[in-house]
């Protein structure tokens, strides 16, 4: 849980908006540090969390959360956290065995949902854009509307923005579809001026709220630096290395 990000998003462990669909996306950068923020935030708020890890193993998240002050192993034992090891499940699909008992990967999608918060990481390698869009719509319908929970999803888009995507399965289409569905977007990018050791990139936060008469979109831009025990966010140009 990064305190600066909490103040930016106006969230505290005690009060945050329910029924939100948060989209984390990155372009040629790595937004996984935001996943740790949300994970520790929700665990501190004593919500039930379901985490689908498709990129890294449980130990990775556990080690980092330890440094952020949250113990994943304890949460798992107490039943507050359900961690689904997506990598191992996917292996059973990619290498089909002769005696498959039927517990295929993505089977947990069909399980009834009781949890309040869900965090997902997606690697677009093996899943088509349509499947991701369907899945996110399904998540949103069940978790956000019915159960008043929050969904946080991390999607990586790889193409450069100006590329002309001829085929339908472009990452742009996926990003647009997901951005339309979500209420809060955090888009992580590298600095437009190039690589810098002290500023790791910029985060664009976009709120899409539905007021009475229409959509209200608010955007803010921050720069960030990731260090060992967290991340610091600051307005562009006010990095401690510069001032």
């Amino acid at each position: 849980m990064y305190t600066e990000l909490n103040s930016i998003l106006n969230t505290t462990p005690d009060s945050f908006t329910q029924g939100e669909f948060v989209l984390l996306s990155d372009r040629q950068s790595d937004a996984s540090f935001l996943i740790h923020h949300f994970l520790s935030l929700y665990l501190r708020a004593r919500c039930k969390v379901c985490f689908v890890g498709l990129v890294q193993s449980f130990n990775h998240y556990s080690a980092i959360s330890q440094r952020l002050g949250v113990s994943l192993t304890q949460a798992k034992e107490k039943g507050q956290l359900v961690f689904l090891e997506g990598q191992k499940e996917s292996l059973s699909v990619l290498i089909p065995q002769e005696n498959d008992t039927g517990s295929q990967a993505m089977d947990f999608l069909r399980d009834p949902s009781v949890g309040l918060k869900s965090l997902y990481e997606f690697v677009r390698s093996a899943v088509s854009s349509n499947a991701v869009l369907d899945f996110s719509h399904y998540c949103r319908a069940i978790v956000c509307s019915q159960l008043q929970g929050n969904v946080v999803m991390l999607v990586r888009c790889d193409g450069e923005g100006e590329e002309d995507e001829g085929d339908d399965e472009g990452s742009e289409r996926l990003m647009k579809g997901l951005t339309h569905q979500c209420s809060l977007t955090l888009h992580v990018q590298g600095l437009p001026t190039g690589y810098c050791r002290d500023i790791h990139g910029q985060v664009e936060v976009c709120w899409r709220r539905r007021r009475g008469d229409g959509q209200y979109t608010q955007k803010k831009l921050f720069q960030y630096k990731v260090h060992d025990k967290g991340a610091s966010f600051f307005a562009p140009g006010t990095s401690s290395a510069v001032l």
Partner: protein
Amino acid sequence: MAAPMSSVGKPSAERSPFNNTSFQKKTRSKLISIPGTRPSVQNGQLLVSTGVTSLDYLLGGGLAVGTVLLIEEDRYDSYSRMILKYFLAEGVVCRHELYVAAAQDNPDDILQELPAPILDDVAMHKPAEQPRLSREPPDALDAMKIAWRYQNLPKVQTALASSSRFGHYYDVSKTMEPEIRQAAKCHRFYLPEHPTQSSPPHSTMLESYSALLKSLQEVINREGFDVAAPMSNSRNILRIGLHSLGSALWGDDLCCHDNPKNGRALTTFLYGLRALLRSSLSVAVVTLPSHLIQDRAIMGSITRLCDNAIALESFKGSERETNPLYKDYHGLIHVRQVPHLNCLASKLPDHKDLAFKLKRKQFSIERLHLPPDLSDTVSRVSRGELAGATTVASACGSGSSGNKHLDF
């Protein structure tokens, strides 16, 4: 979706304790020390050497067990192949097991070309040499005129000991002796010899990749590299070398077309490879002819899927070969990605302008140093010749060749 833990229908094997991946903090479990590995000073990760000490330094001390190193090949696949051979040779010296897969050359040919280690202070068990030793000293007596006090000492230590050093040096002009090489256990996967199986109907992977993944899993399970396997006294590391993945010889059209039909075959394979590696004591080095891939988006996702990624750009055949500025080096090396395992921040190298040169006894990677031009007629080299790729806005190091252009 979340579900109460009791109703999730997972087999009980999944409930095994948390340490069922190869990433374990050193303090939490008793790691049996495996020869040729050492824990990282940054996060306690178990590291192996790539065989090239300067590359080890670039990757943060070594290659973490359970990760993939992607090497984007240079145009003629000379230096990337060299690094692959260094990696396998290091495995032989450290007594690790090897797994070599190739579609173009027979893995046996690759194994025969491994460079010879410089073994002045490392003891290697050579069973064939022992009977010869007793006969040699009488001949050698004549040779020692100055160091005559040492003539009675045995020439080669016959003690059986694996090397405790991390990272060795190799002599590229000689190939490894067959006795040393055959002491190491090698598994081979040569695509033309592998029987083609029908791929499952819903899979996005190609047959060749499916067969390779399946073969890898079989080897890992059979030889006991799986972390979930019962801990025996001797654990070893499996070094996997995959040569030229993605090329047309694997049946992939990624390098042939602008919009490949099987765009996701390689990325699916890499995802499966990573899942395999995370749950076993193995390391993989994958070389990829990236200069043939037109679609940069797919290249980006391939890079993302591999934990470590470097790209080699050799000067051979380009106009830079004759450029006096680059005369000391053989090519440039770009670090595309460095992993951050068990920690938030990754340690990218401070400098983006790195160049390599292959000397006889060392593959060295240095910062590209442009000395000031002190000649009378300062020739102004145009920026287009010097600068490599244009700067890409990225914090994760899809870097430029960023030379220091001293513009006077």
